[in-house]
């Protein structure tokens, strides 16, 4: 468990964050300049805070008031950078072994071969970093951090430099790390799909402060846009159950009390829970239940809020059962349809707009309509808006 309360002044920018996390993956989420990377650097010990403390499993790493600062190399916190930062003068094998020389002997619990196998980098061991692709480099960097036997792993936007295809390859690996090596992970990202998929707990940063924290279902759909263009940044996060697979057409059905959505590809075992990200620009609204349309995913709900923004309008829909869905439309369309608050509405979602990246199998917690209410107690917002 890590307990963080930090403040640091950087010119006009003030960072002031506090949070605690438990097992699994905690995501630090926010747009660029919100203080994510600074927070990571402070936790890793690469920078010093002006005030505050960092406590990892009863071990005080930083405490400004008590003048305690454990240097970076004694913290045993692995850090995977945005660019891999592999040592160019060492081959892949030597890079992987680098951290091993310094790990305490009794901490050698992480098996070299298990890591190499999990990350699928066995065929790269003799290569030089400059002969690796971006995705391979990041996998080696993850392996290098893991093999130093860290007590905590930090990922600082590890896939920012990779294309969507490479991300799709690596995201399941992070899930495997979470489940197999049992190391707590703090994951920095501004990609809502990654955060929704991986994290058990999300901490949203804005202008150096914690704006919200809690399980992704609660936090992400409440969070204002993260992209610099609000039109494309607004997304909703729904929890659904995996239904039948249409093998002939290669589609999977996702069931929600408000209706169903079809997803291209597979999304885990039938009956399991899946989280899905739906961008507001991918949602079409209809007052009547549509028929004879190419769009086959329909969710029913009630108009809850309409926020006009220039030529656009953001419509918030309370879905039947649970969840809130955002739809972006033109303001004229809202006027022409005569949309009013409290009116029932059908949201149409294009199957082709959803990719595998947007669907995750959460480790915990399950939504209330599947089980008894179980708001994660692992995630304790400190002085921030509780979900």
């Amino acid at each position: 468990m890590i307990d963080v309360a930090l403040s640091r002044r950087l010119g006009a920018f003030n960072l002031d964050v506090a949070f605690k996390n438990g097992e699994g993956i905690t995501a630090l989420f926010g747009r660029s300049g919100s203080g994510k990377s600074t927070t990571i650097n402070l936790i890793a010990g690469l920078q010093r805070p002006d005030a505050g403390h960092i406590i990892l499993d009863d071990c005080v790493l930083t405490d400004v008031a008590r003048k305690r600062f454990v240097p970076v190399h004694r913290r045993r916190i692995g850090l995977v950078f945005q660019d891999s930062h592999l040592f160019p003068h060492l081959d892949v094998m030597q890079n992987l072994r680098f951290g091993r020389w310094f790990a305490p002997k009794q901490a050698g619990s992480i098996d070299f071969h298990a890591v190499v196998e999990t990350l699928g980098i066995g065929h790269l061991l003799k290569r030089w970093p400059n002969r690796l692709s971006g995705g391979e480099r990041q996998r080696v960097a993850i392996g290098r951090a893991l093999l130093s036997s860290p007590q905590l792993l930090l990922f600082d936007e590890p896939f920012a430099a990779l294309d969507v295809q490479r991300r799709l390859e690596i995201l399941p690996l992070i899930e495997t790390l979470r489940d197999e090596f049992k190391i707590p992970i703090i994951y920095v990202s501004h990609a809502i799909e990654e955060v929704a998929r991986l994290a058990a707990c999300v901490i949203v940063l804005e202008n150096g402060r914690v704006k919200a924290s809690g399980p992704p279902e609660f936090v992400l759909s409440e969070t204002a846009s993260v992209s610099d263009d609000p039109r494309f940044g607004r997304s909703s996060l729904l929890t659904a159950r995996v239904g039948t697979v249409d093998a002939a057409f290669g589609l999977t059905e996702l069931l929600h009390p408000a209706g169903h959505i079809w997803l291209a590809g597979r999304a885990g075992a039938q009956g399991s829970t899946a989280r899905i990200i739906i961008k507001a620009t991918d949602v079409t609204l209809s007052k009547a239940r549509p028929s004879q349309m190419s769009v086959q995913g329909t969710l029913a709900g009630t108009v809850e809020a309409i926020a006009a923004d220039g030529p656009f309008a953001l419509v918030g829909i309370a879905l039947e059962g649970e969840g809130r869905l955002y739809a972006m439309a033109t303001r004229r369309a809202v006027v022409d349809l005569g949309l009013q608050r409290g009116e029932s509405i059908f949201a149409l979602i294009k199957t082709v707009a959803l990719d595998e990246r947007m669907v995750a199998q959460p480790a915990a917690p399950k939504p209330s309509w599947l089980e008894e209410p179980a708001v994660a107690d692992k995630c304790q917002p400190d002085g921030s808006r509780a979900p």
Partner: protein
Amino acid sequence: MLHLSAAEWTAIFLTLRIAVVATLCALPFGVFTAFVLARWEFPGKMLFNGIIHLPLVLPPVVTGYLLLLSFGRRGMIGSFLYHYFGIVFAFRWTGAALACAVMGFPLMVRAMRLSFESIDQRLEHAAGTLGAGPFARFFLVSLPLALPGIIVGGILAFARSLGEFGATITFVSNIPGETQTISSAIYTLTQVPEGDAAALRLTAVSIAIALAALLVSELVQRGAEKRFARAK
């Protein structure tokens, strides 16, 4: 054809010995100074940097005279070293090596500092997060990555030593067999009427050594580039 006298051979070997010793002895200090200048921030850094670079801009005779004042038998450092360790610099070949080291030091540090500064500091940070302390970071990451620049710095200092004249002749004079290098031998020969042929012979040798040093430096740099291109 080149037919060198024994005295001329002596001058050539002495010059090479002085240059090699000066370069090798200055190397660790140069690497450390370059790293300090590239990575550390401390009050008085600019002054420190200025003092390091002083021999580059001072007249060599002034540097030599300062060395004589401090490292001479009656100089502060010189008398201390002689009294406690029996080491003498003044009018010995070791003194010539010291003069060469001092004169070549700024060139050496400059090349190495640039090399250290060009290393992505985040690689050192990465090594830190993997558990490497300051020493391990230096020897396992910074030093190997700066190696091409360190070699170039060494060769620069070596080449500078071959041609050192002003500081050497002021500090340790021009004693055949002890402190007479190629440069001071040529100078002496130009002062006597029948010295032209010998001076020309030594000039030819000088050119040969300089060319060889350039060639070696080129080869080393190319080799390093090759290795680095592979590693980048």
